[in-house]
């Protein structure tokens, strides 16, 4: 279940980021409630992985798990996060400081609350440069302005002197992206970077991310619940449900031949799989963490469920080239016996 899928667009080199069986849990009573369960994926240099799923499916916690920032009292309870082959799990707090911001940049969903209200935008960018020893003083401020220019901030030198509350939502998100890029990271994690923005601004921010990705050869982990965003932006897709990655595939193949019943439901619920659609059209909701079935998390909502689904968690089946799906329907033994539900 920790198979890697070489991307069909990236050259055959080891992945920049390899997540293996990541587990994130919150303490409940004597035990743990697992919010992220055995999540694995790879991201290669220059590649965009779209992590898509309904609210509560564990996307944000996966991202926080990658940078070692699972909010207390939750914690990473298993798995490995390999950056250029090196496991980040054993890093000291000091070593983490050299990874966060420097190797991995993070863009938060809500730029208003993710920017410090008491410092100017320029100061906050300059601080990242100082943290990583890249520049300080006047030089840091000049580079902050250059970074604001890079993210197409109008009037970058004015914006550098502005406080977050003086900027519009789109400008704030540009500032947030400039902060995330200040340490010149290899990987950018963007957790629903456009959800808090107007539609027109959303498109601008997505264009910007695409441009920056190409210009800086960034790898991008793009978290979204918008299939339209995935279709526009991603090279590969990982669909999350109930804390697990239920299907992973190249983006074109996923939209052409979705295999997991949940993914199929998502795509059917969106007319033509078009942009702007939210993942809400399947009957029912994601089960709460303490009501998660022992087997496939989708069982209560699945129209094709089998007798064993509620009790046995399905493994990831290979269903195509670099295409896997976590569903008992693909079980060869069952298919051979002609047992369709």
């Amino acid at each position, binding site marked *: 279940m920790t198979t890697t899928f070489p991307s069909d667009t990236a050259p055959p080199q080891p992945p920049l980021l390899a997540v293996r069986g990541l587990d994130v849990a919150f303490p409940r009573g004597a035990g743990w409630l697992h919010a992220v369960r055995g999540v694995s994926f790879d991201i290669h240099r220059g590649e965009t992985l779209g992590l898509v799923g309904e609210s509560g499916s564990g996307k944000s916690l996966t991202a926080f798990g990658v940078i070692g*920032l699972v909010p207390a009292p939750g914690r990473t309870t298993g798995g490995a996060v390999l950056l250029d082959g090196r496991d980040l799990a054993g890093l000291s707090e000091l070593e*983490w400081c050299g990874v966060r911001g*420097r190797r991995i940049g*993070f863009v*938060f969903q809500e730029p208003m609350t*993710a920017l*410090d209200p008491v410092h100017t935008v320029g100061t906050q960018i300059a601080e990242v440069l100082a943290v990583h020893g890249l520049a300080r003083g006047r030089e840091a401020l000049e580079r902050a302005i250059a970074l604001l220019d890079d993210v197409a901030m109008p009037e970058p030198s004015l914006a550098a002197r502005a406080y977050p509350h003086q900027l519009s939502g789109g400008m704030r998100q540009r500032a947030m992206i400039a902060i995330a890029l200040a340490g010149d990271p290899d990987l950018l994690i963007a957790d629903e970077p456009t959800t808090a923005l107007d539609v027109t601004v959303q498109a601008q921010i997505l264009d910007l991310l695409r441009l920056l990705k190409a210009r800086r050869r960034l790898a991008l982990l793009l978290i979204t619940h918008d299939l339209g965003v995935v279709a526009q932006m991603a090279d590969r897709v990982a669909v999350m449900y109930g804390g697990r990655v239920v299907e992973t595939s190249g983006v074109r193949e996923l939209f052409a031949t979705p295999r997991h019943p949940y993914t199929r439901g998502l795509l059917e619920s969106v007319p033509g799989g078009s942009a702007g659609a939210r993942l809400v059209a399947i009957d029912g909701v994601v089960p709460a963490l303490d009501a998660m079935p022992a087997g496939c998390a989708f069982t209560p909502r699945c129209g094709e469920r089998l007798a064993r689904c509620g009790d046995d968690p399905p493994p990831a089946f290979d269903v195509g080239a670099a295409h896997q799906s976590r569903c008992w329907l693909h079980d060869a033994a069952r298919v051979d016996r002609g047992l369709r539900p």
Partner: protein
Amino acid sequence: MSLRRLLLIAGVLLVATAWLGRGDPGALVGPSLQPPLTPVRGSPTTTDATTDAAAPPAATRRAWLGTDPIGRDVFVRVVHGGRVSVVLAATATALALLIGVLVGAAAGAAGGVIDTTLMRLSELVIVLPALYVLLAVRAALPLVVSPVTLFLVTAAVLGAIGAPLVARAARAVIASERSRDFVQAAVATGASPWRVLVRHLVPQAGPVVVAQALVLFPAFLLAEATMSFAGLGFPSDNPSWGTLLQDAASVRALDTAPWLLAPVVAMAATVWAINVAADATSRRRS
């Protein structure tokens, strides 16, 4: 507004004390104080033997605010007294802010046992009656101490008494801001826990700390005045505003020389000016 009330209480208290000391309400409608805007010349201790102690002169060309019963220039004495009073209150306030923010930041950032211990200690100090602590400490010193020693001891005691209020306010802000997005965002840029504390958490406490300072400063001004008024403070030849009021209390001030109460006006004006300045600063920032 709580500050304005504090100010009002302080002013009323001082006037009332001076009045109770030599009481004659009729003098309250005596000649008004003349606002001198000249640079200070002259010494606060030069006496004039020709002065009629029973009726010291009001404003003259040489003494803009009149003189006291032994001929010392009241205006010069108020200005000199202000140096002691204002600088002392400001020093004590600064000390309280410094200790308070340090303790509050440590408690808010550390949490757990350290937090609980520091906050219990603070509460212990907060419930002490500040003025009595000051008087008790003063009483423990020799009756005559040098003004410098007195200044330092008073500032230290007031600072230590005021610090827990600041600490509690700062801690509350820091503890609540710790879970905010921008703190996690700062950590995600590689900022160390120390940097997050100093650069992102402590600055959030700025407004409440300023608010505390605006409460502490007038309280300290009043505390020192009370101490000196009680005769335990600065001596007559190195006066604070409290000393001047003490001097005023020993003559029929309201009756014969109301200008001797000028320090009360000076205190009120100082506190008011600081508030206006603080208001203007906070308006400019937002």
